[in-house]
């Protein structure tokens, strides 16, 4: 199946700093999503971004499908941004309607 690698595994920031999280895929993707898992364990949808760039407030994401990676940008980070960020994509070939494979996550800690 598809392999999903996220980097860095851990990231510690001071409030106000910017950061970039990366997600690499072993195969082409057509259904890529970014999620934020908050400290209560809830999985929050951030972006559905199979290609191109999207922005939502301080967050933006870019996927370069041909090069099999996606980036999540967090600008002017806040303590509430803390948590685990996951990217997820479908099985190899992108033909399966459902079997998202998740990366291992990036643990982000934002200090005041």
């Amino acid at each position: 199946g598809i392999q999903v690698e996220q980097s860095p595994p851990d990231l510690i920031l001071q409030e106000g700093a910017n950061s970039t999280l990366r997600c690499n895929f072993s195969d082409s993707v057509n259904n890529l999503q970014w999620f934020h898992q908050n400290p209560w364990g809830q999985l929050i949808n951030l972006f559905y971004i199979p290609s191109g760039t999207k922005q939502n407030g301080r967050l933006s994401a870019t996927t370069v499908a041909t090069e099999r990676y996606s980036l999540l940008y967090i600008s002017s980070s806040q303590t509430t941004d803390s948590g685990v960020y996951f990217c997820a994509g479908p099985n190899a070939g992108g033909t399966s309607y459902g079997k998202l494979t998740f990366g291992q996550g990036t643990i982000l800690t934002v200090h005041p």
Partner: protein
Amino acid sequence: EPEVTQTPSHQVTQMGQEVILRCVPISNHLYFYWYRQILGQKVEFLVSFYNNEISEKSEIFDDQFSVERPDGSNFTLKIRSTKLEDSAMYFCASSRTGFGYTFGSGTRLTVV
């Protein structure tokens, strides 16, 4: 914004007991999923459900697991005889097209 609703948010059960985790997907969605996350680990696919039948399941989804859509709005995951290793956060998700999923906030299952 439409939500996927999961109940209960936390359930504690005795080993060997049956549990039913409940989900109300977004009303016009056609694809339904269950995922689980053991504490500190990746989110893992369990099963996908479309057109009133299982479309795909993982090796984790063995005979002790079953899913149902009993009334056109609820989507349930039943674990027949719980084991200690079933302790995890269980997430329900739905999708209208099979691309782009909305996850519920999860049910934390603790087997004692």
